């Protein structure tokens, strides 16, 4: 039983039922969190690669942008406790990207400019659940939010939606990425409040 914090009362409006996971609050801002300086890669040097498949596969920016795109509106949930509702993104579905390679791996490690990594099960990237997003709210994705392109996996805490993503490494085992090595949860389901290892 949690002790009562004397004199503390709700000030925020109640979030719409079923929209906000436990321990989260709704923000209208779009906060920025990252561990180091914002990397800036020129589009002519940008590629998106999938390693660890039977044959490696890589797209230049031009090739990537020629793939079919989707526009989606979704809620996002950051482990630092803000949730942002009805965010609109443009991106390429991971279904499209992963269909270009043959693999039987069950996990990926996403890798990024700046050295960031995060681990995800393949099952969470397929079936219309994940994108490589290059647009936000009708504009190109800004560098501080992960542009030119970031992973977008909105059903997991937002650190899994790796900024400045440059590719996926398919793996047979689930190896921790950057924050996962610092004690954050390996999977990160916001509805089960899987913030830290052991949650």
């Amino acid at each position, binding site marked *: 039983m*949690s*002790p*009562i*914090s*004397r*004199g*503390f*009362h*709700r*000030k*925020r409006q109640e979030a719409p039922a079923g929209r906000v996971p436990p*321990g989260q*609050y709704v*923000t209208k*801002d*779009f*906060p*920025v*969190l*990252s*561990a*180091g*300086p*914002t*990397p800036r890669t020129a589009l002519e040097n940008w590629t998106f690669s999938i390693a660890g498949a039977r044959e490696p596969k890589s797209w230049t920016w031009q090739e990537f942008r020629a793939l079919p795109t989707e526009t989606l509106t979704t809620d996002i949930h950051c482990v*630092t*406790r803000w949730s942002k509702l009805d965010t609109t993104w443009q991106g390429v579905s991971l279904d499209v990207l992963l269909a270009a390679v043959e693999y039987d791996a069950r996990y990926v490690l996403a890798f990024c400019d*700046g*050295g960031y990594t995060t681990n995800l099960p393949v099952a969470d990237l397929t079936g219309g659940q994940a994108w490589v997003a290059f647009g936000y709210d009708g504009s190109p994705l800004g560098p*501080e939010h992960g542009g030119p392109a970031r992973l977008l996996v909105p059903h997991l805490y937002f650190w899994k939606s790796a900024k400045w993503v440059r590719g996926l490494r398919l793996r047979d085992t689930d190896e*921790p990425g*950057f*924050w996962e*090595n*610092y*004690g954050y949860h390996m999977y990160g389901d916001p509805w089960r409040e899987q913030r*830290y*290892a*052991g*949650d």
Partner: protein
Amino acid sequence: MAGTAVRGRLTWQTATVGSVTDETPRVRTLALEVPDWPGHRAGQHVDIRLTADDGYQAERAYSIASAPGEPLAITVERLDDGEVSPYLTEELQPGDFLEVRGPIGGYFVWEPAFGGPLMLLAGGSGVVPLRAILRCWVSAGSSVPARLLYSSRSWEDVIYQAELDSDGAEVIHALTRSQPPGWTGYARRVDQQMLAEVAWPAAQQPLAYVCGPTSFVEAVASGLVGLGYPAGRVKTERFGATGQ
């Protein structure tokens, strides 16, 4: 990087508010008594949970203000439209209860073995984890030079003023909105020229920690990279929204 992880489950623990210290008109430090606090490293943060008498709960993360080995303390800036910070800075009194969970985070940390020179850059209440680092630097008797560039709106908004004056680190203030009479220091936001004047030269292989609002962190971190700091030697922590 592995090996620093928190592997056990972090459980919520009851904390009793010890002393409260007003740092500025908008900022208060809370000493928290936590019987089973496992200890923390300089730069880590802690989750705070408040419970209302109707069962409503709110959770937030705060940087830890105290050095390793010291009792847990947080320093909180009041955001007028906030739900938690006005309570922590205005209502909470010694003897009150809240819950804590932590420590959290293992990247934005410094320990004496990391060396330096240490280049700390703070915007507003972003000074809090850097103060923990400086206290750690002092108590360890570290021989690496430490320098803090600290941007505040005005002199009365400077947190830990007296402590920063006397801890032996070199502190350079920038006051962005108003300055006391006779002020001869920087009277503008941190910019590239200021960084070039103040930051340790990249050739000395400094280790930089940047904490503040996003606009501050973006400008400072890119500025340091522009001065030749390798990105991996610039650790950042941000708070607040995209604007201010």
